[in-house]
């Protein structure tokens, strides 16, 4: 059997080895005109309002059911652009490779990154590679640039009284997939990491007057909705029965004493839309590739009797009311 080829400090020297790594792994995957210029910085066209976001991706394991860090680092950043109504256009990638990383694994991840970028319609226009001491790990930072159509205002504080609250699918899948791998629980759960461009474009092109979009990542739905309630100064009321959670994620949470409302996703969003457009928005989501599990989960209320500004309430299955707050601490598995 051929020996596994791994990253060494030499690959970060900036010399011959670095050049070979870029030539063999990155250049073929990311090939495009802008990168092809091989200049110190990328010069691209753009005008009007620009959306910019950056995110660093640290995940163990690097490859998991339903995705890998390459797909993840595109989806995370692209989705953040989309949540302001921006059309994602460019992406930069900074790779921090740990000594000992298998080159074949890196190749696979880079390929996945490139495929996901193509799917999401973004061009990779700049990149960087560094090598640090370590244990075969990999950290990726991506910065995304998008253009925001004139007149569009989608923001966390825009929810208004009477609006409907929708989610684009089941909650907790990504978090459960990762935790399952780490705790070696054999599971059919797959990460949901996906770019949400089709859903957002569908809503906007379909004439939905979208108030707010948020992707449901770390902290889970509970955290996201509580933040939206606070940002808008309204009270969000959701129905426990209406929040989609797959049976397998529900049982996974049951096993570990976790709450699906505080489990992260990487390919789901919350949308706040005018009540009269809720059914139409739901239909658009359901017809999109990553929105088949979409649901209307609740509504936005003003401050009034039994409701306070900035509050998140959930009507429970048995008819009780639960007040929710943001995730506290870390979602650790527990038995007690």
């Amino acid at each position, binding site marked *: 059997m051929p020996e596994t080829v791994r990253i060494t400090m030499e690959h970060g020297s900036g010399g011959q080895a670095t050049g070979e790594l870029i030539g063999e792994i990155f250049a073929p995957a990311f090939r495009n005109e802008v990168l092809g210029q091989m200049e110190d910085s990328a010069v691209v066209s753009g005008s009007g309002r620009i959306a910019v976001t950056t995110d660093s991706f640290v995940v163990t394991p690097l490859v998991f059911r339903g995705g890998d860090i390459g797909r993840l680092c595109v989806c995370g950043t692209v989705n953040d652009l989309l949540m302001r109504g921006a059309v994602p256009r460019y992406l930069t990638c900074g790779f921090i490779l740990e000594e000992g990383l298998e080159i074949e694994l890196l190749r696979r991840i880079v390929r996945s990154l490139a495929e996901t970028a193509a799917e999401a319609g973004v061009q990779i226009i700049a990149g960087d590679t560094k090598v640090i001491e370590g244990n075969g790990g990999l950290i990726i930072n991506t910065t995304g640039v998008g253009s925001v159509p004139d007149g569009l205002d989608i923001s966390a504080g825009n929810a208004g009284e009477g609006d409907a609250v929708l989610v684009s699918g089941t909650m907790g899948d990504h978090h459960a997939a990762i935790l399952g791998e780490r705790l070696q629980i*054999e*599971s*059919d759960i797959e990460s949901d990491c996906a770019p949400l461009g089709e859903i957002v474009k569908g809503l906007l092109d379909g004439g939905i007057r979208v108030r707010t979009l948020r992707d449901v990542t770390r902290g889970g739905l509970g955290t996201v909705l509580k933040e939206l309630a606070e940002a808008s100064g309204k009270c969000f009321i959701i129905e426990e029965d209406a929040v989609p959670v797959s049976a*397998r994620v529900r*049982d*996974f949470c049951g*096993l570990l004493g976790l709450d699906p409302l505080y489990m992260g996703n990487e390919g789901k969003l919350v949308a706040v839309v005018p009540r009269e457009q809720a059914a139409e928005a739901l239909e658009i989501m359901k017809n999109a590739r990553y929105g088949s599990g979409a649901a209307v989960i609740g509504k936005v209320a003003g401050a009034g009797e039994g409701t306070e500004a900035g509050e998140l309430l959930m009507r429970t299955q048995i008819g009780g009311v639960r007040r929710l707050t943001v995730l506290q601490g870390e979602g650790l598995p*527990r038995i*007690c």
Partner: protein
Amino acid sequence: MCVAMPGRVLSVGERTALVDFSGNRVQARTGLVKIEPGDNVLVHAGCILQKVSDREMEEMNAVMREMDELL
């Protein structure tokens, strides 16, 4: 305290049994109660604590009848 979940036994090994929880499979430690494939069992911290009675409805109905008579 004491998070525990019901699941279904898929297969039984020497010291463990494979228990399914809607698509999550755990090698749960056996040794506290006799089990066979197909049994519904209660699992706590990776161990099978008890079999789940398949007569739950009947038993619960009996409890409820008793409660009606409690006053």
